[in-house]
Structures are given as C-alpha cells and as structure tokens.
C-alpha cells in the first residue's frame, strides 16, 4: 500500500488528533483559530501535491483517481475557507472551540473518504463518519435554545432514516449482483436496469445522497437545520456535504448504462420539483439562512440537471457548478456571520443599508447573491450555463424551460436581499467592522467568483478530464 495515496486523509486525521490534544488544556480562541488556519492551509497544499496520483487501496474498495482527488481538493479548500470564516466564532463557547475544529476535521475526513469509496459498505461507513460529527456539531453553541436542539434532533432522525433507505437499496443491489464493488455492479447493470428492481435499488441508494444534497423529497430538514444551527456550522453543512454528495451521485448514477430511460425520467421529475419548490418557498422567507436553505434546495435541482445527462459533459458541469456554489454560499455565510453580532440569525431587515455600514460586505453579499441567481459575469451563471447546455444536449428541453422559468422566479428573492443592502437606509443600525483576515477572505471570494465566471476554460477542461476517469 502506498502511504502517499492516503496522505490527505491521514493528514486530516492527525489534525483532528491535534485538536483533541488542544482541547485537553486551556488555550485562547485566537491561538486555536490560528492553528486551524495554518493546518488546513497546509492541507490544501497536501491535496494539491496528491492531485495527480492514481491507485487503489484497501482491496480495491478505495480508489484514488483524478475525480476523487479533485473533489478532495475542493473539500480541503472549502474547509480552509470555513476555518478562516470562523475567526470570531460568536456562537460557540471558547472552551469548546478545539472540539468544534476537531469535529469539522473529522467530518471533512468522512467526506474525503466518501468521494474515494468505490464499494458500497465503504461509502456507507465514510458517510456515517461525516454525519455523526455533524450530529454533534449542530447542538454545540452558546445558548442552547429549543431551535438548536430541534435542529439537532431533526438532523439525526432524518439522517438515520435516509441512511436506512440507502442501506435497503444497497441490499437490493447486493442481492442482485452478489457484489458490493461498484465496478462489478457496473458490469452486471445493463441486464438489471431493465428490471424495476434494479432501478429501485439504484434510486434507493441515491436517496442517501439526495438527503445530503437536500433534493426535494428529502429536503424537510434543510430550512430548520439552517435556521437552528450556528452560522459558522451552517456554512459547513451548506457546502461540504453537498460537494461530496454531488461526487457520489455521479459515481452511483454512472453505474447505469447509457439509455436508462426510467432512471432518467425519475431524476427529471425530482429535479423539476426540487427547483420549483425551492424557489417558490424561498420567495416568502425573511430569515437569510432559511432563504439560503430553500435556495440550496433549488440549486440541488439545478445540479441534478447535469447528473441526469449520464454523460461526462453533464458531470463536469456539475463539478464546475458545485465549486461555484461552494464559493457563492461561503460568500453569503461570511456576510451573515460578520453581520450577526452575537451569533444570532440575520433577517433581511438586519442587512438594510449594509452598503453604508460596510461597503465591502455589501459588495460580497451582492456578488454572492447575484452569483446564486446566475447573473453573469459570476461563476453562478457560467455553471448554470454549462448545466443547461449539457441537459439540452440530451434533449431535456421541457426541463430546461422549467429551469429557465425558475431562474427568473429566483431573481426576485435574491434581488430582494441586494435591494435591502443597497436600496434602503440603515435606520440606525450600527456600522459593521471587518477584521483584516475577513477582509482578505472577502476579496478572495469576490475575485474567485468573478474569475471563475469569466475565465472558466481551464477549469471546465480539467473537470472534463477528471470526470472521464470514472467512466472507465
């Protein structure tokens, strides 16, 4: 076994241990955060170093290829940004901060394991590893109000149910193919996909990832958990598991041979319902986090557009869009967690006149929300554009029209936020101070979102190469 192949995961595990040690004695919050930023920063470089490695580990249950390494790199960048974003972690008690970072690392570790797993049981275990850390992270916060506990309980119950459904699907697939290895399942799939039981098996497995991605029949947890959880924790939940879920959706859907009409039809319906429901429900939200929750449901629908093509073009568009989505969401959460004084939730009226209180934050917010709305020249537009091309190539015209109408609907609520920040007066709300590191993060996210939108050529080519590796 080549140890280097497993380096990013080992590193995260060691980092979690480091924070475990750190939690044994008193240490200042600033020191903890400094260590975390430093360590996760190194993590990004380690992932860059292992980017081009390929190989199989653990009896072929674990595959290191460009596809998995790209997603791991994304996850490590995400973790790094989130750790910077947690600089003034207002909603978590100082003494719990090492634990907070520890569980973030463990959860990220689970997600990294997930994107490399090519065997059903490994997938399940790594997914649970990540979920269990989140079950603990959600209730960790300063004031344990009923909202927080409710969120935690809901996440556990829905999560457990989704895992159960997924396991059930795995049992079907195992029963049909006598194997838990994706590569072997794939060989036997062409004869199974014609049978209802094969489709049901695949769909049930997908349910577990639908839950993570908050696709419609599994979306119920999203608004409540976003609302009831600390801003910093949500910034993790809103981005990282979704990246891994997108990767796994691609891996599982890839099992289906080309021309699996029934499976695609189900996905088309789910995608259409998901984006329509998400966008319409978001129209009436006042709480920014709830609004982002519904927007994430809608975006899950957009992401399915790429997945249901069953083609590399679609998968690479998904990879692009999920990257853009992570950056845009982090931009929004950065603003939310900075504006929030004591870690409380932020409503639309709380950000009124933000452009006078902090021009930079207002600009980040505008870029983030315009990006989510899919307005050029942001990465959100480019991602959506690629998804549309991929899906329309496969002839899903009706679905694309639904998606286009949805984009138009969604403009209203995204614009509403920008309007509140730019079009209204502060009405006595205080100025928001932005620290130096947070300022850098603001600039970084703005530049990244716009650059990715304007110059996507390199990335999309890279994503295509990465996605081709799983077609084998």
């Amino acid at each position, binding site marked *: 076994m080549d140890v280097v192949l497993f380096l990013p995961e080992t590193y995260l595990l060691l980092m979690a241990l480091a924070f475990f040690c750190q939690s044994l004695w008193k240490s200042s919050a600033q020191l903890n955060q400094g260590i975390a930023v430093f360590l996760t920063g190194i993590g990004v470089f380690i992932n860059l170093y292992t980017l081009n490695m390929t190989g199989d580990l653990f009896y072929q249950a674990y595959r290191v290829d460009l596809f998995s390494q790209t997603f791991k790199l994304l996850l490590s960048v995400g973790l790094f940004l989130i750790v910077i974003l947690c600089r003034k972690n207002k909603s978590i008690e100082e003494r719990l901060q090492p634990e907070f970072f520890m569980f973030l690392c463990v959860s990220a570790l689970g997600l990294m394991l997930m994107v490399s797993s090519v065997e059903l049981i490994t997938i399940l275990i790594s997914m649970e590893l990540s979920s269990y850390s989140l079950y603990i992270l959600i209730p960790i916060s300063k004031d344990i109000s009923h909202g927080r506990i409710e969120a935690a309980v809901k996440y556990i119950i829905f999560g457990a149910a989704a895992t159960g459904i997924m396991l059930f699907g795995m049992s079907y697939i195992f029963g049909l193919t006598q194997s838990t290895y994706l590569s072997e399942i794939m060989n036997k799939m062409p004869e199974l996909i014609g049978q209802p039981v094969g489709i049901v098996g695949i769909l049930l497995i997908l349910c577990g990832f639908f839950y993570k991605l908050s696709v419609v029949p599994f979306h119920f947890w999203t608004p409540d958990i976003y609302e009831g959880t600390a801003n910093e924790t949500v910034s993790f939940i809103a981005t990282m598991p979704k990246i891994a879920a997108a990767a796994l959706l691609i891996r599982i859907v890839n099992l289906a041979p080309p021309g699996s009409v029934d499976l695609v039809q189900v996905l088309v319906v789910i995608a259409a319902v998901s984006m329509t429901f998400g966008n319409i429900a978001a129209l009436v939200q006042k709480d920014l986090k709830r609004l982002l929750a519904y927007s994430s449901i809608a975006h899950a629908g957009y992401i399915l557009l790429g997945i249901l093509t069953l083609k590399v073009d679609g998968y690479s568009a998904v990879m692009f869009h999920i990257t853009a989505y992570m950056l845009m969401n982090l931009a929004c959460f950065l603003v939310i967690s900075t504006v929030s004084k004591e870690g409380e939730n932020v409503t639309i009226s709380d950000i009124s006149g933000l*452009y006078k209180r902090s*021009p930079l934050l207002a600009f980040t917010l*505008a870029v983030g929300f*315009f990006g989510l709305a899919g*307005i*050029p*020249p942001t990465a959100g*537009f480019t991602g959506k*554009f*690629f998804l*549309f*091309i991929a899906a*329309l*190539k496969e002839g899903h*015209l009706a679905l*694309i*029209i639904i998606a*286009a*109408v949805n*984009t*138009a609907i969604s*403009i*209203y609520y995204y*614009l*509403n936020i*920008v*309007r509140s920040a*730019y*079009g*209204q007066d502060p009405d006595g709300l205080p100025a928001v101070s932005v620290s130096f590191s947070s300022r850098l993060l603001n600039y970084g996210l703005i530049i990244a979102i716009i650059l990715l939108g304007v110059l*996507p*050529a390199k990335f*999309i*080519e890279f994503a*295509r190469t990465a996605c081709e590796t799983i077609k084998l």
Partner: protein
Amino acid sequence: MDFLIPNQLNYPILSVLIFAPLAGAIVLFMIRNETVARIWTLLVSLAVFVLSLPLYFNFDPSTTKYQFGEHTAWIPAFNINYTLGIDGISLLLVLLSTFLIPICVLASWKYIDKRVKEFHFCLLLMGSACVGIFSSLDFVLFYIFWEAMLIPMYLLIAVWGGPEKVYASIKFFIYTMVGSVFLLVAMIALYLKVGTFCIPELMTQTHLFSFNFQFWVFLAFGIAFAIKVPMAPFHTWLPAAHVQAPTAGSVLLASVLLKMGTYGFLRFCLPITPNASMYFAPYILIISICSIVYGGYVALGQSDMKKLIAYSSVAHMGFVTLGIFLFNKYGLEGAILQMINHGITTGALFLCVGIIYERSHSRLIADNSGIAKIMPIYIGFFGFFCLSSMAFPGTNSFVGELLVLLGVFTDHKLIGALSIPGVVLAAAYMLHLLQRIAWGKKGKINFPDMNIREVIYLTPLVIFVLWIGFAPGPFLDVMHASVGHLMDQLQTAGAVALVK
C-alpha cells in the same frame, strides 16, 4: 473567419473601449476625494470617446464584413470565443454609447452628492458593457454583457433613485431577467443545432433551421428584445424606471439600453430566424402601431415631465420597430438612424428635466411652468429638443421618421395611414409640454438660468441634432452596405422557403 476583417488599426480598439472604462473604474476606488473622482471619471470617459473616434474614420463603408475584428479562443470546450467586430449597424451605436458617458458625468456633477465614487463606478461599468453589447460577435459574450449591464443599471436606480426607487429598480431587473432567460435557452438551442455561438456563422446556417424551430427561437428572442425596446404590452417597467432613475440613469436607459432591444432584432431575429421574422412581421407592425399611438396618447395626459418623455420613448421606439420589420431599405436605415436620433434627443430631454429638477426639486409640469422669462437659455435648449422630438423638419428625427414613413408607404399603405396619428400626437404632447413649461401660469419661482457646465454638455447634442437634420449623409453612408447585406440575407431565406 471570412466574415471578419482583422483589425485595421495597430491596437485592439474594441477591447480598449471595453476594458479602459473597467480599468478606470478600478482606479476610482483608490481615489479618496470626491471632486477628484468626478474629474477622473470625466477624463476616462472623454478619453474613451476620443479613442472611439478612429472607429468612424477608419470604417470602410463599402464592405459587408465585420470590421476591427478581434478573435481569441475563450472557452474552447464549448467553442466559445472572444470575438469582437462592428458593422454599419453597430458602429453608430458604439459611438453613441461612448459619446454619452462623459455627458452623463457632467450632468451628475451637482445632482449626485452621496456615494459619488460608487456612482461613477457604475457609470463606467455601464460604458464598458454598452460597447461590449454592440460589438460582441459571440452569442455568449453578448449575453454576458447584456446581463452584466443589469447590475450597474440596477444600482443606479436603486441607490441614487427617487422615492419609489425600490419598486422601480426591482421591476426593471425582473422584467429584463425574465426576457433574458428565454434568450439563454434559445441561444443554447441554436448552439446545439449548429455547434457554434458565433453570430455571423449562425446567420449563414439558417437553412438548418426548420420553420418550427425558427418560430420558437424567434419567440424567445422576441420576448427578450420586446421587453427591452419596450413594445406596448411589455413597456410598464419603463415609466417607473425612468421616473425614479437619476438623470444620468435616465439618459443611459433611454439612449442606450432601449437600443439594445432594437439592435437585438436587427442582429439576431432578422438574420438568424428570417422565415419566422417574415411570419411574425405583420403582428410586429401592428404592435408597433399600437405602441406609437398608445405611447403618444398616454404621454398627452401626463403631469410628470419624466413620465411624459418616457411614454414618448415608447412611441418613438414604435417607429424603430416599425421600420425594422418592413424589411426594405428605407425602413431599416430609417430605423437605425431613428435609434441614434432617439438616443440624442430623448437623452437631451432627460438632461433638460434633470436641470430643472436640480432647481425646483420637482418633476411636475405644474411646479415648473412659466419659466420662459426667468430661464431664457434653458427654454431655448428645451424648446429646441422638443421640436426635435416631434420630428420638426431640419432636426434629426425628421429625417429618421421620414425614412421610416417612406418605407411604410412603399409596402403597406394601410399601416402607414395608421401611423400618421402617432406623428400628430407627438407634435401635440410635445408642444403641450413646451407651452406649459415656457409660458404656463407662473408660480412664485425664481431659478438661476443654466450655467456654463450645463450649456457645455447640451451643446454637442444640439450640434448632432442639426447635423443629422440637415446633412444625414455621413450617418447613412456607413450603414448602406450592412443594411443591404441584411436584406440579402432575408431575401435568400425567403427564396429558400419558396423552393421548399
């Protein structure tokens, strides 16, 4: 690349025109002093205007190809390129955009007193996006500019607008977005059919598009452009946006943004979906007549100066779409000239309203009436532009409207007869406005007359009104070849359809 003439100049002029304002806008953030920021923006925009002049002087009016071409691969995976170039249709529109930005800066000198830097930032972004829209030859590039332009325009209305700015800005944004998402779908559909986003290449592939396909693509295009023009049932965002926008916003909105719609018809609908355009032409002609008469009639009843001019825009733009969908030389050239004329005249009228608004803080006619004696210079300018707006002989609009009407009467006598009331209405509402402002019942008002700055930025507009009015030759000459080419494209498509 046989549709593109490589850049005649030794520097990439169109890219410079797009990126110079952007660079200027970024530098703007490093300037602390507000006056310096104003001067800087003025210098940048003037420089951009001066830099855009070689476009006219080096333009070859004899060729139908796109000139000053630039071509760089941008997203090779999807065959998306950074292709720029202009022809006789877009040349004047590019020049109009660069010409108006410095005027907008001057007009906002006193009017904008909060968030000065950000305001000028938005103005420069607008300048960059406008040039981009009119010079893009790649559909994706065009779409990006088309949409990106929304953000600074939205901010211009939402931050520096009047009391109803929130409603107006959101309405403006959503209307445009709704139109453009369908544009996006149509654009992807075209790409999948032909495998390119290159607009001139799409024009040559029309034989691949069945009528049914053209029908839907035209509808998708048509909604986006009709909202932007705006044509009668889609016009409701315009009065709201115009009334609430600051002067510079109104000017840009009227002079450049509305042209994007008619330009879209000329650049996309006619050459890419020729058969569908012919099929829809009668309906569009009827809608245009409705816009002309309805816009004029509503304008007659307004008590708010800006609203009156906004509705007059609906009527004027009706003449433009009327001219476009006649498919004959007079109609098309008249329409293009009328686009420029409307940009100059209506822009000037909004500037005039801005001048009086700075003094009285009211846009109502009743609050500003009877000022001929106290502001003679102002009334001189205002009256002049009113005459131009109602197409008085000797002014620019007369030439444009005459060409359009000539076009109408050659092919459709009945439609022509129906458009005559619109011409009469234009005279009615403009004279009524002028009469009340100049010689109406005088209130207890005492405003200072126009200052040097205001005279300076209105004078170039006066020159152009008279120039186009008396000698439209230089403006029409550049478009002959391109318009002829456009008509050829339509005729070829029509012939193919007949063979089928």
